[in-house]
């Protein structure tokens, strides 16, 4: 019986290594101090997945055409069974996603989690934030109501004030000199193909680096890894018996270097 379950698992593992990867992910060690603050990243990921799922459903009913876009949004909201829920979730999920991104970024900043060796992951995170705001900007036009239209007019005009590249960016976004059918299909393509694709790639990279580099413990308590040697001259963790306070004959480089600095 056991073999019956294990056989396909082993088959898969032998050919892909995926089972080992998943069990590594699940049973890897995280610092003891890992707490509720550390859930903001996965909460942000959850909000993103909500956007993906509801976005796919909306794409099945939404028509990216200036003559029909508003009607299709109206129909999704008022007629389609549970359409209000899907659209409402997508609409408010976007705000929650952005809020969680900012909270997560604030947590990373206060925990000093952008420091060596996690600098690259900070850069990826900032790129994710920018792309998320681009999602917000492109998605805002799609309902094709007055709010959407005029906010986009101003948004594109702001882009146009940038030196040199500005007018070109504005023309590219509009797909011409006016906001019309070309603008709508352009924003639609960016909103549901280009930017989400880039986001999925960057988020995957972000998670890979989190797993590879490990979780940063909170910046309090003994895990804060102080810059200066502890005042009593003992290596950090000596009290807990984790690190041998006496330099050992074959002592690891950590301890010998440290006592050398202190004396």
């Amino acid at each position, binding site marked *: 019986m056991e073999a019956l379950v294990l056989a396909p698992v082993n088959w898969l593992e032998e050919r892909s290594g995926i089972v080992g990867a998943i069990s590594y992910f699940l049973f890897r060690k995280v610092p003891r101090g890992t707490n509720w603050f550390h859930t903001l990243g996965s909460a942000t990921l*959850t909000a993103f997945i909500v956007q993906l799922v509801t976005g796919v459903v909306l794409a099945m009913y939404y028509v990216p055409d200036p003559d029909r876009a508003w009607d299709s949004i109206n129909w999704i909201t008022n007629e389609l069974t549970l359409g209000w829920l899907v659209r409402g979730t997508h609409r408010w999920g976007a705000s929650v996603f952005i809020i969680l991104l900012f909270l997560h970024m604030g947590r990373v900043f206060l925990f000093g989690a952008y420091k*060596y060796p996690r600098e690259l992951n900070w850069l990826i995170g900032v790129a994710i934030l920018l792309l998320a705001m681009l999602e917000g900007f492109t998605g805002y036009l799609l309902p*094709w109501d007055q709010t959407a239209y005029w906010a986009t007019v101003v948004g594109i005009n702001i882009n146009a004030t940038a030196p040199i590249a500005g007018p070109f960016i504005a023309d590219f976004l509009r797909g011409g000199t006016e906001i019309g059918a070309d603008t709508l299909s352009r924003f639609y393509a960016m909103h549901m193909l280009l930017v989400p694709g880039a986001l999925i790639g960057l988020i995957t990279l972000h998670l890979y680096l989190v797993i590879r580099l490990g979780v940063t413990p909170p910046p309090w308590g003994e895990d804060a890894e102080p810059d200066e040697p502890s005042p009593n001259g003992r290596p950090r963790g000596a009290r807990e018996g984790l690190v041998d306070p006496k330099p050992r004959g074959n002592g690891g480089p950590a301890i010998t270097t440290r006592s050398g600095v202190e004396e």
Partner: protein
Amino acid sequence: MAKLDNRERYARYKEDVEKRGKPFYPYAMFHDTVMSLVVVSVITALAAIWYFTSGEEPGDAGLLGPRYTEEADPGTTSFVPRPDWYFFFLFYLLRIFKWPESVILGTVGIPTILLILLFALPFIDRRRERRLVRRPVAVVAALLVIASMGILTWEGATAEEPSATAGSVLCEANDLDCEGNEELALGADVFAEAGCLSCHVYAGEGAQNIGAPELTTVGDLGRGEEYWVEWVRNPQAIRPGSPMPGFPNLTEEQLQAVAVFLEASTGGG
């Protein structure tokens, strides 16, 4: 040396986590799952509140705003643009700077500088120290950023929308004799009601810095009335790529009156 120190500390962290850490499953995963459920519930609750307190009519707002506003109409001129809330800080930044000398600071300058600082953060702050009490600069900077973003967002959210200004107010503010000139008075009214002030500033009235030039002394350009009639009707015919919307719905009489009004606007003359 600094690099070696970093590596050494990181190796110690790895060793420490391996020895004393707890497995991700079930401990951290429990927290993550609870938090994710909270997130999904909050989003669903927002959607429900938004839907059940609003009505089917465009603009029929409930606790969380309307389901949609009227269908987009490039011909309307009085709609006041409003972005989604997380762009409010940018939106308000634009009002602080004056067109045209410094508006680029608000649209491009400050956002670009902030972006560069954000990207460069791990390369600016290279110390290993993570305890908050030992990072006063970082903590103060974070508080300042949070406070200024909060204030800008709040100001952007509550910013007064340019209210409808009567034509006579404009005439008075710019020293124009509209009472003695019927066409001038009509031009001022059309100018005020057609929504020019949604983008332009005129004698201190109107939307600051959406990106359109101030028109208080536009008559000094000496373009002539015929030019203004054509320009207001369809700016793209004169300058392709101009961001200004055309006003093809105005009558010839209205266009002519606006042209007279613009030509007469010479700033106290």
